[in-house]
């Protein structure tokens, strides 16, 4: 099978993720979309690894998974804390970092 199909799927998933990050306002959904983008990248990495016949890409994909797991843990923790404190769960409302 040509590598182009893998890359096309990867790009499609990435685009869905990016679109989600841009349009959604709920941080939980944004986090989900971020995961989509990461996994799209993973897919591309593994595809390239297969194509070149080396293991570098797979190693990277594993590392990305680990980092993604950490990130999700922290991100979910923050979101849960926000629910508990009854803060508005809306990224447009959280803009204290404006200049």
């Amino acid at each position, binding site marked *: 099978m040509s590598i182009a199909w893998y890359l096309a799927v990867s790009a499609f998933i990435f685009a869905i993720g990016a679109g989600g990050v*841009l349009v959604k306002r709920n941080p939980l959904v944004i986090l989900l979309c971020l995961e989509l983008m990461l996994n799209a990248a993973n897919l591309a990495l593994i595809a390239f690894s297969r194509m070149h016949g080396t293991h570098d890409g797979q190693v990277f994909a594993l590392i990305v998974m680990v980092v993604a797991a950490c990130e999700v843990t922290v991100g979910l923790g923050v979101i849960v804390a926000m629910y508990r404190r009854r803060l508005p769960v809306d*990224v447009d409302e959280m*803009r*204290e*970092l*404006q*200049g």
Partner: protein
Amino acid sequence: MTSVKTFAWLTLLFPLAGCIVNALGYRVLRGKAPGYVGTAVLFASFVSAVLMLFALQDLAAEERHVRAVAWDYMAVGGFDGQLALLIDPLSAFMTVTITGVSSLIHLYSVAYMGGDRGYARFFSYLNFFVFSMLLLILAGNFIFLIVGWAFVGAASYLLISFWFRRTTATAAGIKAFVINVLGDVGLVLGTFFIFRGTGTLDYLGAFEKAGEISGGDVTAGCILLLVGAFAKSAQIPLHTWLADAMEGPTPVSALIHAATMVTAGVYLIARMWPLFEESESAAAVGAIIGCLTLFVSATIGLVVTDLKRIIAYSTMSQIGYMVMAVSSGAYVAGIFHFYTHAFFKALLFMAAGSVIAAMAGVQDIDRMRGFRGAMPFTFGCFVIGGLSLAGVPPFAGFVSKDEVLAYVADRGDWHVALVVVGYITAFITALYTFRLIFRVFFGEPSPEARELEEGHLHHADVPRNPMTGEEEDTDVGFPGPEHHIAEREGPMKGAMGVLAFFAVFAGFLQIPNVTDALDTFMEPTFEGSRFHEELHPSDALTFGGLAIGAAFSLAGIAVAYLIWMRRPEIAAQVRERFRPLHTLFVNKWYADEALDRLFVRPAAWFGRFAQQTFERVVVNGLFVGGPVGLVRAGSAAVRSRQSGFLRAYAALMVVGLTGVVLWLLIRA
């Protein structure tokens, strides 16, 4: 040789020890103890100075330049500064005179300052002053000359503003100090010029090489040394501090501002004779300024009405004679006049102090009258001092002043003009001295004099500053409430008695054609001097001069008698006739105003400009505000993009990354 050195160090260290004991023991020493400590060390110093002089006389004539070195002071690079003394006839003679007169003044102060709340402080300062003065005189190189020079200035500052709650006193103090620093600067710069030419800071070494300095350098150096001398000796144009310095206690005026410190300039010129003989023009500047000062200050003395200031102006005038003498090559005559002047001027100040005490601090002669009956002893001393100052034969001042004028006249040429001014001033001197005596001691007694005749010393109800009339801050740092007059105090009487004796007889040290003790004694110091060998006034010149001098001074006294005793209305008439001249004299020839316009105001303006404008506009505005403004503007521009919308950032990232990827693709 060793005994000379030992005595020299002892002479120097006794007053220093007194200063330290009085300073540290201000709580322990009770009553009059500080005064006696101060006086005792001074007498000890005097004795050792005399012993030093004799030990020096025992040496062979060519060995009478003794250098005593303690340790290296700044001996690195090209410098050879050591803590060294030079004892030769000139410094030995000055030392003996200064310690002698100073110990009498200390004795006088024991009683005069009694009851003042700064008694220990006063004697500590006074001892320190004498130490500094001796350091100045005995210094063996330029460094310690400058050190002594500045110490003397500091001591003078401390004593002028001794009563430090008086704003007039502190203002006078800072004025004296700053003008003296100006003199120090002149001295240091002059030293630079001489050091550049000779490569040594030591007197003897430098004098030996005096001929090797280039002509420009030696003239510049000598003129700068003269600036130092003028500042210290209150010569025009750096003289304005001396009259203000009369804010200090009267013994201070007697010690510093009459007998010792102000004659430092005379000593300096005499000491530096090998340099001044190399530079005709610098010596001429000295002689002319001396002559100018002696005339100008005498005219001021004629019109001011403050008792102490009149005597201060007469001091300036007399120092003018000395400066003129030493600058014209009549070294011994100048030193001789310094010596007699120390006695009679100290005596005059002491008597004036006694009168001021009887007036409870008032110094205005308009309010004094008829003290003759109430204070016979003071009156007697004042008249002796006055006669000596006026130059009436056979008093000390007569002999020395006429010797100065005869020697200067012997230089011939334009120096004769100086002598003419000198004689005219002798007349004015007699006039203002006796104006003082007639107005203070004769006539109908003033209330204070009456009170004293009845056996009670006047005390003011509310003490007021004699200069401003402002009420004094009587808490502390103010003249003590007691007053002491010579008639009632043994120490004052003793000191004045001795001085009166010398004011009459001191001149017998050197009478033309009879003795020339001083001349012979000074020989080793001035050996090799052109003028010292050449100048020998003929008998006709000498005795003619003496006769003219006597005539002028007697005429002055006679005129004074006529104006202020017989026909008092003449004074008013003269004043009306010469109104502009009188205004000029009363305003001291506007010297204060000139200095103010030329130096004080520009400096103050510059300070204000720096403080209020430059610091704000350039330093804080341009250098601090400029970069800060740039950073502010830059950050404001960037900040407007930071909306805080998370999704906007994400969109920006996506767009940016897409842009980068596209660009890479297109390039590929």
